[in-house]
């Protein structure tokens, strides 16, 4: 009980820290009289982001008296497996499905089948291209990019920035980079964007990109990163060049390595999504749909901005599963 109260207190502080122009809350509905069975599909549980989300689904379902059937595709490459998992959920006549799609276009036919079977689909985090979903719940990637831009506007005011925009053609990363650039160009004439690079979201790619940037441009004041792994690579390159802490790093997402580097002052700002919140809201939306209540077509979960100053106090209960938690 005390832990919950502390968590709530920290949550209030955390919420004021966030600049997010997203939906502030999506309240828990009353406990339904019936126990619903909800199928949940995530791409990869080895990613802490989805482990946190799994916790959100499970814990929220328990509070609403619902049962969760959790399926892990085991990686974004296993589209055929996720399709089979959805078909099996349809055959077991679950009441609703929460889907984090491993592929936008690839999940279109199977979501059609769920719709044909009368099973509502709550689309979470990674979007399917099928328009027949009942509701979409995700972070607003435009806000993520703008939050980083605002931060540099306030902290840096004047200087040169390079951009690591992550995988080309991946919509979430593209949106972040685009909105970052647009906000800077519109509001901060003092900040110049020197160059932009697309690459896979891996540390070695980030390292290589940053090394090349350092060779190309003699004066770099900040590095924008669409995703966490390229940011970690950039940090390594800056450390090797003796510039860690002198060049600002802003990045999206918050894995344990990112957290350590924020504490060390190497990563200046991390804009953090709330996967636990995504899971909770998805279950709430599913229950609302099943109880024949109106739901919006789209919900944006809030984001947090974390810096060295608040990394010790920021509430991560909406970001990560409790330490040692495992899905049953």
């Amino acid at each position, binding site marked *: 009980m005390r832990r919950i109260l502390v968590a709530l207190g920290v949550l209030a502080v955390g919420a004021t820290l966030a600049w997010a122009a997203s939906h502030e809350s999506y309240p828990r509905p009353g406990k339904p009289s019936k126990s619903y069975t909800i199928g949940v599909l995530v791409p990869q549980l080895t990613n802490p982001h989805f482990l946190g989300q799994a916790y959100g689904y499970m814990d929220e379902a328990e509070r609403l008296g619902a049962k969760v059937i959790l*399926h892990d595709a085991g990686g974004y490459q296993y589209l055929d497996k996720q399709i089979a998992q959805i078909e099996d959920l349809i055959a077991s006549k679950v009441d609703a499905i929460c889907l984090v799609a491993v592929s936008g276009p690839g999940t279109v036919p199977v979501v059609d089948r769920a719709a044909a079977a009368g099973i509502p689909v709550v689309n979470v985090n990674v979007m399917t291209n099928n328009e027949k979903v009942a509701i979409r719940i995700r972070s607003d990637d435009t806000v993520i990019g703008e939050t980083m831009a605002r931060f540099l506007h306030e902290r840096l005011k004047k200087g040169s920035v390079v951009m690591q925009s992550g995988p080309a053609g991946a919509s979430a990363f593209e949106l972040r980079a685009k909105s970052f650039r647009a906000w800077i160009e519109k509001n901060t004439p003092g900040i110049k964007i020197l160059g932009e690079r697309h690459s896979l979201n891996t540390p070695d790619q980030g390292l290589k990109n940053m090394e090349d940037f350092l060779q190309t441009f003699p004066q770099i004041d900040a590095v924008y990163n669409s995703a966490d792994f390229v940011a970690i690579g950039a940090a390594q390159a800056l450390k090797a060049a003796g510039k860690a802490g002198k060049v600002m790093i802003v990045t999206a997402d918050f894995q344990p390595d990112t957290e350590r580097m924020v504490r060390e002052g190497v990563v200046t700002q991390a804009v953090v999504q709330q996967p636990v919140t995504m899971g909770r809201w998805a279950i709430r939306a599913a229950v609302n749909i099943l109880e024949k209540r109106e739901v919006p077509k789209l919900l944006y979960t809030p984001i947090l901005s974390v810096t060295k100053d608040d990394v010790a106090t920021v509430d991560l209960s909406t970001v990560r599963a409790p330490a040692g938690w495992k899905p049953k």
Partner: protein
Amino acid sequence: MTADSDTAVAAAPRPRLLPFAWDRVALPGFILLMGLVFGSLNPNFFSWTNLTNVARQSSVLALLSIGQTFAIVSGGIDLSVGSLLAVVSVLGSMQLVAFGLVPGVVGGILAATLAGAVSGLLIARTRIPPFIVTLGMLSLARGTAFTVTGGMPVVGLPTEIQWIGAGSLGPLPVPGVIAAVAFVGAHWLLRRTSFGRYVYAMGGNEAAAIAAGINVRWHKFFVYCLSGFCAGVAGIVITSRTLSGQPTVGETLELYAIAAVVIGGTRLGGGDGSLIRTLFGVIVIAVLGNGLNLINVSSYIQLIVIGAIIIVAVGFDLWRRERRA
């Protein structure tokens, strides 16, 4: 020696401890048992929707396993089939978008058959072992699929293609019918044609087959063309099920195809095996995956169970052979 080859059955003395052909009923019995367990734990298991689901989901594995059976019986192996799916998915989709339904389907199947022909040519004409040639093809094909798409899915496919993966012929799901027809055709090819007899012969003893005047090179080449063709048809089914071209699709499926063949009781060394056994192997893997999903067993446990079954099935098969010998 196997119970499937008629002469062997006639020649082998009936062992006392095994009063009847255990190998003919062991797998069907196991499948029945799984059905009873899953059915009692989740009544939806026996629903028509679910049974057609199993047929749809297993059709891709079934098609790959048919090609794999020929490769293994001939004394080889084909590791490239999972990656060939990606090649078909990507190239087939591009052609579907550009030229329409028939050119897309034919082009996709041709692409995989051609890749199989390249493997077959290398295996037939050089001394590089099939394991190495098809391992190389695995990487080559996957790399090609990624290169031509830049890693992104191909979209905008004509929706008529969905009929292949999602459609029905009367009450029967189309991909299940495709797999069934392929099984019958392949069984006939392996059992009733001279090509099939030569496949057994060269798998059993290649030197003897050559001495007997069999054109081993030509038939080896044809085995891998056939495996590529099967992967091509499977690739079209998966393209239809995903309504997009996916360069990542089919990863590790080649291992499940090999697993299906050996669970069925076909020896990895070659010269022995049948498509009926492979069919049972495919059903075991498909029903297991589906049933465990239906009773909400985590996919990690599923991997453990499938691994254990591969070892137990092959162990049982060896034990039975020794008893008989």
